[in-house]
Structures are given as structure tokens and as C-alpha cells.
């Protein structure tokens, strides 16, 4: 179980709190939706869960222990909204996927087409790049996946395709998913349950 226990976070000492004692739990294989308005701290919570940011108070545990991977992939992987920022623009798709250390032979063709492998990120479309991004997160065999607005900038058909692939892969491998979005109907479609995050109260600073 991926669990956040009383997590507090702020970006600097003189900045207001973004997370104020947040609690959250995701079972293995569960898809949890996190909904809320922009600027409400959803992405920050996602980054704290994935270990990008360290909470000031409280803790994030995976199966009861705080994950401290050394030279190994973090059990919680993050897929970001803008894939062009998540992949080094100087790398080809093959290099980006190979950096995970996994074999590319078993790659799902529906996720990453063979023809894209030797292209640079700016040479494939946004939807295709997001699929590469997702494939990279899945290649390291994570226990949990934080999908932060992964389909926000895509058209409806591409959105549906990405979510179908993601849910299929996660169901197969028993990966727990935190789906972050401000699009409630989308979350109600893909997630088993949906949590609402209210905006951070101004007085908290």
C-alpha cells in the first residue's frame, strides 16, 4: 500500500504551506482519482508521493516502509503532464527508454511504435510522446504510478487510447495508480474512487 501520513510541504521556509497534513492511501492494483481546482496542491502531492520532493513533516510509505532506493528505480514512478519536458530533448526515444536499463524487445507496440525509436522528442506528436513517457515509467516495473494530468493537453481520442493502455498495463502488473486531474468526469470513468482536494486556505501560510 502506498500511503501518505500527515504530509506537510512548502517550497521554501518563507513560502506558504502547500500540503497541510495530507493523508492518502492507495492499495496495490487500485486506481484512485484525485480531483481539485488548479493551484490546489495536487501535483505537489503527486511529486511528494513519487519521492521528487521530500515532505517537511509526515512520511510517505510503500508497504509500511519509507522507500530509499539506492542506485535502483523508485517504486513510485511519476508520469508528467508535459512529456516534452520529461524527456531530454537531446535523446532519441530509444536512448530515453534504454536509460531505464530494461530490454526494449518486449516493448508493447501499441504504446511505442518501432518507427519512433530513432526519432527525437520533437519529431513525434504530443500524444505519441506521452505514450513513450508512459512506457518509460512502466519499463522500470514500478509498484505505483502517479499520473499527473497525463492527458490534459490531448484530444479525446488520444486521451481514451492512453488511458486504456495505462489501465490495461497496470491491471496486468497489479500497479496502483493515482490519477490526478481537474476533469471529474474523466476520473469517474477511469478510477475506482475519486478524492476531492479543496484549495489550500490562504491563512495556512
Amino acid at each position, binding site marked *: 500500500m502506498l500511503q501518505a501520513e500527515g504530509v506537510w510541504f512548502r517550497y521554501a521556509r518563507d513560502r506558504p504551506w502547500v500540503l497541510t497534513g495530507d493523508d492518502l492511501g492507495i492499495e496495490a492494483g487500485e486506481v484512485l482519482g484525485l480531483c481539485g481546482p488548479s493551484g490546489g496542491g495536487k501535483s505537489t502531492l503527486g511529486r511528494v508521493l*513519487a519521492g521528487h520532493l521530500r515532505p517537511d513533516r509526515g512520511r510517505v510509505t510503500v508497504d509500511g516502509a519509507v522507500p530509499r532506493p*539506492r542506485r535502483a528505480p*523508485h517504486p513510485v*514512478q511519476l508520469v*508528467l503532464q508535459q512529456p516534452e519536458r520529461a524527456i531530454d*530533448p537531446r535523446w532519441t526515444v530509444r536512448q530515453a527508454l534504454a536509460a*531505464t*536499463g530494461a530490454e526494449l524487445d518486449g516493448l508493447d507496440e501499441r504504446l511505442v511504435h518501432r518507427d519512433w525509436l530513432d526519432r*527525437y522528442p520533437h519529431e513525434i506528436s504530443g500524444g505519441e510522446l506521452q505514450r513513450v513517457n508512459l512506457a518509460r515509467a512502466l519499463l*522500470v516495473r514500478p509498484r505505483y504510478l502517479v499520473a499527473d494530468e497525463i492527458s490534459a493537453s490531448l484530444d479525446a481520442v488520444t486521451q481514451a487510447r492512453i488511458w486504456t493502455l495505462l489501465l490495461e498495463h497496470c491491471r496486468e502488473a497489479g500497479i496502483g495508480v493515482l490519477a490526478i486531474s481537474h476533469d471529474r468526469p474523466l476520473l469517474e470513468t477511469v478510477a475506482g474512487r475519486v478524492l476531492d482536494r479543496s484549495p489550500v486556505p490562504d491563512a495556512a501560510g
Partner: protein
Amino acid sequence: MTAVLERPGRRFADRRSRTLAWVGLSVLVVLGVVVAGGLAADAAQTTSLTDRNLGPSASHWFGTDRLGRDMLARTLAGLRLSLVVGVAAAVVSAAIALALACSAAVFGGVVDRAVGWLVDLFLALPHLVLLILVAFALGGGTGAVVAAVALTHWPTLTRVLRGRAREVMSSDYVAISRQQGHGRGWIARRHLAGHLTGHFLVGTVLLFPHAILHEAALSFLGLGVDPGEPSIGILLAESMRHLTAGAWWLAVLPGLCLLVVVTLVDTIGSSSRALLDPRSHHL
């Protein structure tokens, strides 16, 4: 326009090979100058008092100076010396900048602050004064010029590289590489190196004319290369005394040659950067 739209691959390939041809040609010419300068070393010092102050002619393309030395041979020898001093000083300076910028970005914290402070300190000092002091302390000569220029010209490039390196290190793709279990060394090699190459090349090339000009300035002041050696700086300094007597070839021809060589080196730098950049790797 339709032709361009129909055959984009052909057009890109042509442009890439044109750039490659330019780089190749420039490298050849610069190497040619270095070799020719070496071969002309003796001729550059041979005096012939019967051929004093001759203008450009078939036997002396660049004319002769007040001691009857052939100016073409002196210009070639001078260019060679300037190139050696310029390249050596620019490369050492750029290497210092790269090392400092990378360590600041990779280790961060105290190291980053120390590098920032060092850059500010050196930028606050007038670098010409520092240059003269270092050259004086080292006793003059070619080595002293290289050391003085190298030791005074790293701060600007360090600042540029440090800024770029910080941008890369704080990017999402580096955060994701970290999350996938990669350490500092791996990130520096795989992410940082590629992103800094272009800036490093351009920065090194931009240091080159600076180095040559400072070599000329130091030689003019008597702290640079030995006055007997025909560096371009010394040739230009000597020519000042004869310009009023109408000996224009002493300054104009070596000056033009210097300009051409600097432009060629500039072409090599900026074209290599364009060839290495994935966004223009097939332009």
C-alpha cells in the same frame, strides 16, 4: 515552395553536407596556415637590406619591412604563433570554466556558492590589469601570455555554463532520471555533457579572438612574446611607425589575414554547434 515541400529530406541532407564541407574547408585552411607558418619560420627572420620597404609585388606578395624581411613569411609565421597562443589560451580557459560550472551544478550547495563567489570576484577586477600582473609575474614570453589569458578569461564562460547547467539539473527529465535510480556521475555524463557542448564550443570560439588580441596587447607592452618573434601583435605594433611613411601593406595585409583566420575559427565553432544540436542535426 512546392519543390521544398515535396523533397524535404533532400534539402536537409544538402544543407548538412554543405555545413560539413564548410567546417572541413575551414579546418584545412587553418591547419594549412599553421603548417605554412612553420615552414616560413626561417624566411620570416631573413633580412635583405637591398629589398627594404618594398610594396606588394610578384616576388614579395605582401611587400617587405624596413629590414627587407618578406612580409608574407612574417604574416604566416605570425598567424601560426597567434593561432597557437589563441587556441591554447582559449582551450585552457574554457576547460577551467567547464570544470567549475559542472562541479557547481553537480554538487550544488557550498560548491555552487563558492564558484559563484569566485566568478563575481574575478569579474569585479579589471581583467586587463590582472592580465598584465599575471604576465609580469610569470616573466613574459609565450607561455606567460597563454597562462595570463587563460587565467583571466574563464569567469564569463563559467557564468554562462553554470546557468545552463543549473537549468538542466533542475529540469523534469533530470528529476525523472534520478527517480529511476541514476546517480550524479551518470546524470552529468548523459544529460549535462550534451547540453553544455554547444555553449562550450561557442564560448571557446568567442574566447579565441580575445586571446589573440590580448596576446597582441601584451606583446605591444613588452610583456608578451619575444619582440624578435613575428606574432601578429608585434607586426601590427611595428607597422604603426611606418604607416605615415605610406607603408600600408605592413598593417593592412597581416590585419586582413588575422581577420580571415578568426572568421574561419568562428565558422568551425558555430557550425560544429549546429551539427551537434538535435534540432538542427539534419539541417
